[in-house]
């Protein structure tokens, strides 16, 4: 049976998050000291060797990304922590920041040293003012102790926009603008916040860093799935017995998560589907449950690991009803900058609504598939590109739910 393994949540529930001395007593800030004793290239090589890949959804190699920013010459560079956590069903970054804020600060400071940045920002979603308070207290304590050296960290708040989790929209938002994504390239590592080289990593990615520096890249690379090593913090919601969170090696299968740690489907009902990675994730049927939760294994079945949200649905759930909620979400959250997303999310919501109301036809289903295909390649950012996934995967795996409603 699947076992938990706590790397990111190593101190969760064990130390007082608002007492830096307890973090230090648990070995905190040793990694930063060790990192500063290495030269920057060796440090980046160590992170590369761990093969740590971003935990914010895109799965980019962390050390590789740091190297781009390190290489770029500039008078000022920035480190940004993405704490926007907007994927419905996800609360792992909140857990990390509430339970062990210093681990995130330490990870950011290591990155700052590696790329040559003396200023960091944490962009925390507006829905978490109580987390912002914790972060500010943690920063004050770290400054008072002098553990961060000349690295400065400031918290900025979002204000309720899912798209601001996208890295370039996030940068726009910190700059005080509407959170509309930029065209890439240039990538933030070259031209980011206020035009300066900027590293943006997810909260969970940063929380992994001190352990990697401490125990070495090889140690980390040997945990979980080789192509996406380490652990992942998962949050279980929906019709599952244990609606809670777990941190597991990335080689753990979906079945082990749902039936092992999750305790199976609630109320003795039968399993119908699980959506992983948040609202933009694909829906997964029973037949694919033996897939590992690692990034590549999930991609191979047309799904995503994404944020690690695990939303379980029992046999009584109508996929069209759930998907209609999701298409509504995307229409609301589309920033409107590019036409394929602005128009596409609206039409998609309209078509799914029509089918849900018993007014749709086979032609509408064909149109949905075509529209989804176009959006996944034509939209400017990941929001519009991923928005069709729940529709297309349910049309693929749960076609009967749609067909039953056609005129």
């Amino acid at each position: 049976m699947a076992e938990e393994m706590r790397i990111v949540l190593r101190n969760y529930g064990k130390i007082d998050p608002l007492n830096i001395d307890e973090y230090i007593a648990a070995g905190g800030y040793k990694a930063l000291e060790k990192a500063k004793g290495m030269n920057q290239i060796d440090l980046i090589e160590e992170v590369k060797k761990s093969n740590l890949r971003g935990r914010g959804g895109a799965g980019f190699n962390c050390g590789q990304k740091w190297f781009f920013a390190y290489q770029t010459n500039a008078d000022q560079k920035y480190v940004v922590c993405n704490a926007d956590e907007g994927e419905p069903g996800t609360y792992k970054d909140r857990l990390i920041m509430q339970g062990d804020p210093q681990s995130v600060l330490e990870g950011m400071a290591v990155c700052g040293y590696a790329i040559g940045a003396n200023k960091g920002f944490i962009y925390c979603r507006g829905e978490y003012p109580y987390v912002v308070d914790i972060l500010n207290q943690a920063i004050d304590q770290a400054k008072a102790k002098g553990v961060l050296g000349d690295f400065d960290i400031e918290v900025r708040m979002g204000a309720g926009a899912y798209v601001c989790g996208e890295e370039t929209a996030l940068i726009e938002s910190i700059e005080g603008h509407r959170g509309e994504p930029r065209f890439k390239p240039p990538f933030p590592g070259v031209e980011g916040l206020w035009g300066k080289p900027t590293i943006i990593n997810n909260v969970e990615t940063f929380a992994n860093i001190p352990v990697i520096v401490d125990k070495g890249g090889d140690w980390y690379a040997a945990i979980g799935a080789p192509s996406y090593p380490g652990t992942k913090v998962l949050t279980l919601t929906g019709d599952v017995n244990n609606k809670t969170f777990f941190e597991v090696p990335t080689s753990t299968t979906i079945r082990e998560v749902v039936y092992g740690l999750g305790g199976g489907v609630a109320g003795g009902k039968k399993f119908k589907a699980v959506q992983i990675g948040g609202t933009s994730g694909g829906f997964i049927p029973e037949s694919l449950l033996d897939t590992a939760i690692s990034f590549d294994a999930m991609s191979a079945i047309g799904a995503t690991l994404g944020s690690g949200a695990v939303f379980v649905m029992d046999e009584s759930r109508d996929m069209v009803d759930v998907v209609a909620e999701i298409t509504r979400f995307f229409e609301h959250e589309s920033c409107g900058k590019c036409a394929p997303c602005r128009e596409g999310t609206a039409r998609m919501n309209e078509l799914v609504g029509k089918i849900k109301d018993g007014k749709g036809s086979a032609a509408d289903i064909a149109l949905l598939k075509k529209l989804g295909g176009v959006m996944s390649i034509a939209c400017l950012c990941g929001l519009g590109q991923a928005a069709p996934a729940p529709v297309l995967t349910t049309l693929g795996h749960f076609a009967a739910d749609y067909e039953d409603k056609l005129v």
Partner: protein
Amino acid sequence: MSYKEIIARYAEVPGGIIEAFHAVEKELSFLPEEAIAEAARVFKMPAAEAFGVASFYSMFSTKARGKNIIRLCESAPCHVAGAAEVVAAIEKELGIRMGESTKDGLFALEFTECVGQCQATPVITINSKPYLDVTPAIVPNILAEYK
């Protein structure tokens, strides 16, 4: 504190208009037109741009609304956990519909997307404080705290 004094506190923060708007909303519950115009002056941007920022983010409102902002999560995990019944219960208790404010100015009622407390759905927040596992039966008790 007046909105002018509040906004002035953020004048030196690069990109600080969003922080300033949060602070104004904390005091007034919404962003009056004059406050947005003032922010445009302080942060040296055209008024249209400042309005663009104010209207982009769902937590900000350019229309007056009740003092205590009740937000009900309508994302999928809360939806399947029975958010609709909670909506009905709050609407009945307050005598208003989603998107409205009570006549006495005490409450505003809105939908929100996931607020990251999905371990105990359905979820509502009041002035961002989360209330978990909400049922229609406990709605009156929760609201009583703010009356």
